[in-house]
C-alpha cells in the first residue's frame, strides 16, 4: 500500500510537468491553430536560464521562477510577431516546420555555448529535505512541485472561466469568426496568449532544473510524450490537457511499477493509451469533433 501511494505520488509529480507543458500547447493551439513544436526547446531554455542566472549572476531559484517565465513569455511574443504571425493564414504545416526549425536552432545555440554535458543545479535549500506523511516520507521538492503546478493549473482555469480576458480567449478559441462579428478584436489577444503558453513551458523548465538533467536536449525527448498527452486530452481542450497530463503521469508510474515484467508494454504505455483513446474517441477524451468547414 505504501508503495502504491508512493508510485501514485510520483506519477502525479511527472504528470505535473506534462500538465504544465500540455496546458501551454493547448492554449496556443486553441487560439492560433499552431502546433508549437518549439515548446520543448522553451522548456529547456527555462531550465538553462535558471542555471545561467544562478551561476553567472547568483540569482536564486525563487527569483528564476518568476524571471524566466516572464522573460521567455516576452521572447515568445516577439517570435509570434516576427515569424509565426506571418504564417498563420497558410497551411498549419508551415508553422510546424518553422517551430521545428526554431527548436533545432535554439538547441544548437545552447549546445554551442554550454556543450552537451548536463549542467549542475542544486535543489533550493529550503526544499532539500523530506516531508513525513506518516507511513512514508517524500522529497519536499516533489511535494512543492505538485502543489505549485496544481495551483498554476487552477489559476489558469480561474482566469479562463471567471475573467473577461478568459471569456474573450475562450470565445475566440471556439468561434473566432463569430467573436469577431461581435466586435471583439481577436488579433489583439493572439500574441499575449502565445507568450503565455511559452511562459508556462519556461516555468516547467525552471521547476525541472533541480530534479532533471539540464542539457540542450532535455526538451526534445519530453515533448513527444507531451504531444501524446495533448492528443489524448483533445487538441485545444484546456481541461483535457491538464487532466490527460496528470493521468499519463500516473499511467506511466504505475506501468513502470507493476508491469516491469513486460518492459515493452511499460515503455510504450503512453502510446498504447493514445491509440486506444483515438480509436474510441477520435477527438480525444475532452475534445469536440470539429464541424466540417
Amino acid at each position, binding site marked *: 500500500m505504501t508503495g502504491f501511494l508512493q508510485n501514485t505520488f510520483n506519477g502525479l509529480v511527472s504528470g505535473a510537468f506534462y500538465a504544465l507543458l500540455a496546458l501551454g500547447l493547448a492554449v496556443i493551439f486553441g487560439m492560433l491553430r499552431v502546433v508549437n513544436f518549439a515548446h520543448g526547446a522553451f522548456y529547456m531554455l527555462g531550465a538553462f536560464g535558471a542555471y545561467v542566472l544562478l551561476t553567472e549572476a547568483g540569482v536564486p531559484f525563487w527569483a528564476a521562477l518568476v524571471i524566466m517565465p516572464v522573460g521567455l513569455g516576452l521572447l515568445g511574443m516577439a517570435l509570434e510577431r516576427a515569424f509565426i504571425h506571418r504564417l498563420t493564414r497558410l497551411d498549419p504545416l508551415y508553422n*510546424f516546420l518553422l517551430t521545428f526549425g526554431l527548436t533545432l536552432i535554439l538547441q544548437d545555440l545552447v549546445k554551442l555555448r554550454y556543450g552537451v*554535458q548536463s549542467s549542475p543545479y542544486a535543489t533550493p535549500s529550503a526544499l532539500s529535505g523530506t516531508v513525513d506523511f506518516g507511513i512514508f516520507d517524500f522529497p519536499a521538492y516533489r511535494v512543492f512541485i505538485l502543489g505549485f503546478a496544481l495551483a498554476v493549473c487552477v489559476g489558469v482555469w480561474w482566469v479562463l472561466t471567471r475573467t473577461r480576458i478568459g471569456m474573450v480567449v475562450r470565445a475566440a478559441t471556439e468561434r473566432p469568426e463569430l467573436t469577431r462579428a461581435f466586435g471583439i478584436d481577436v488579433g489583439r489577444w493572439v500574441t499575449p496568449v502565445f507568450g503565455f503558453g511559452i511562459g508556462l513551458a519556461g516555468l516547467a523548465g525552471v521547476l525541472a532544473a533541480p530534479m532533471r*538533467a539540464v542539457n540542450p536536449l532535455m526538451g526534445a525527448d519530453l515533448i513527444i510524450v507531451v504531444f501524446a498527452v495533448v492528443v489524448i486530452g483533445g487538441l485545444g481542450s484546456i481541461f483535457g490537457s491538464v487532466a490527460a497530463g496528470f493521468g499519463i503521469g500516473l499511467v506511466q508510474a504505475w506501468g513502470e511499477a507493476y508491469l516491469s515484467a513486460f518492459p515493452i508494454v511499460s515503455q510504450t504505455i503512453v502510446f498504447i493509451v493514445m491509440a486506444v483513446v483515438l480509436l474510441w474517441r477520435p477527438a480525444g477524451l475532452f475534445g469536440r469533433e470539429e464541424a466540417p468547414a
Partner: protein
Amino acid sequence: MRRTVGVAAASAAAMVLVAGCGGGPQSGGDQKLTGDKIVLGVLNDQSGAYSELSGKNSVKAVEMAIADFKAKHGDKAVTKDITVETADHQNKPDIANSKAAEMYDRKGVDLILDVPTSSAALKVADVAKEKKKLYFNIGAATTDLTGKSCNKYTFHYAYDTYMLANGTGKTTTEQIGKNWYILYPNYAFGQDMEKSFSAAITQAGGTVVGKDGAPFPNTSGDYSTFLLKAPTLNPKPQVLGTMQAGAELVNVVKQYNEFKLREKGVGLAVGLMFLTDIHSLTPAALAGTTYTDAWYWNFDAKNREFADRFQKETNARPTFAHAANYSAATQYLEAVQAAGTDDADAVVKNLEGKTVEDVFLRNGKIRAEDHRVVHDAYLAQVKPQSEVSEPWDYVKVLKTIPAAEAFRAPSSDCKM
C-alpha cells in the same frame, strides 16, 4: 491535422538525412610511407552526447602526440609530415561506416582513432578489416571488438564492459556491500553491462537481489519507481548499481539524492562514468560513489604533467578517453618509426605482443591473441566536497587493479 503533422515529420526527417560529402583523391607512392606522410584520423562524436568526454579535445590530444613525437625524434623521425583528419560520426553506425571508408580511401588516413558508441565501433572494425588499414578503438565499450568481431587491423585500447564490471562489481562487493540492486537502460549496452556486472558480483560472493531495465530512452526522465523500490527489497541492497550513462545517469543520481537513498543505507556504484559526468553533477551529488576508471589525471606526477599541458590547450582536465587517444597516437607513430614504414601489416607485426609503458598505459601490453590492449585500471571513489581541493580533482583511487586482472582472458570467439 494529423496527416499534416505526419507529412511535416517526414519532411523534417528528410532534411536531417541530407548529409554532405567531400574530399579529393590522394595519390599513393612506392615510398616507405604512402604519400611520404602519415595521416591520423579521429572519427568520433563531435556534437552529441559523447562530444565532451572525447570529441574535439581528443583531436587536440592527438595533435599533442604528434608534436611530442616530432620533438622526440627530430631529424631522425620517419617523416615530419604528420597530419590529422577528423570527422563527426554522430554516433550513427551508417555514418561511421561511410566516414571510415572515406578516410581510408580518399583522405589517405593510415590509422583511425576513437570511435565511441559500440554499434558504430563494430562497423568501423569491418571497414578496417576490408581495407587492411589500422584502427585503434578507444571510445567504445563492447567486448565484441576483441571477441567475435576481432580482426588483424583492429585494436581495442582503453576499456570495455568486462573491465568496468569486473572492477566495480567485484571490488565493490568485496569492500562495500554484498547485496546489489541493478538498474540498467533497456538496450544492448545496458543489458550487456547488467550481465557482466551480475556475473562479477556473483563471482565475488555477492547477490543481485533485484534488477530492472528502465525504458531507453527514458522520455519521462523519471526513475523514482525504481529508486523507491530499491530500499524495500529483501534482503535490503547495500549497493545500487546504475548502468545509465550521460544525461540519464545525471537523472538517476539527482533522484537518488532526492530520495535520500544514501542516508537509507543504499550506496551508489556507477557502471560507466567519465570525469566530465562528475563535473556536471558536482562531486557533492556523487560523494562516495564508486566506479572503475581507465586512467585518472591526478593519479601521479606523470599524469598530472600531461593534464597540465592538456589544460593549457583545452581549458579542461583530460578524461581517460583523451589520455588514451594521446597514448594510442603515440604508440602508433612509434611503431611506424620502429618498422620504418606505414605498411599496415608491418606495423601490426611491430605492435603485437609489445609491452608498453606511457602516460596512459601502465604495465601495458598489446595482446597478440585478440588485440586487447591491457593495462592497469583503477577503482575510484568520488570525494566528499570538503576534500575537493582544486577544480576537476574529484576522485581518489581506492585500488589499482593490475593489468593482468583488469581484463578478461582472450576470448575463444576471436578468430583473427
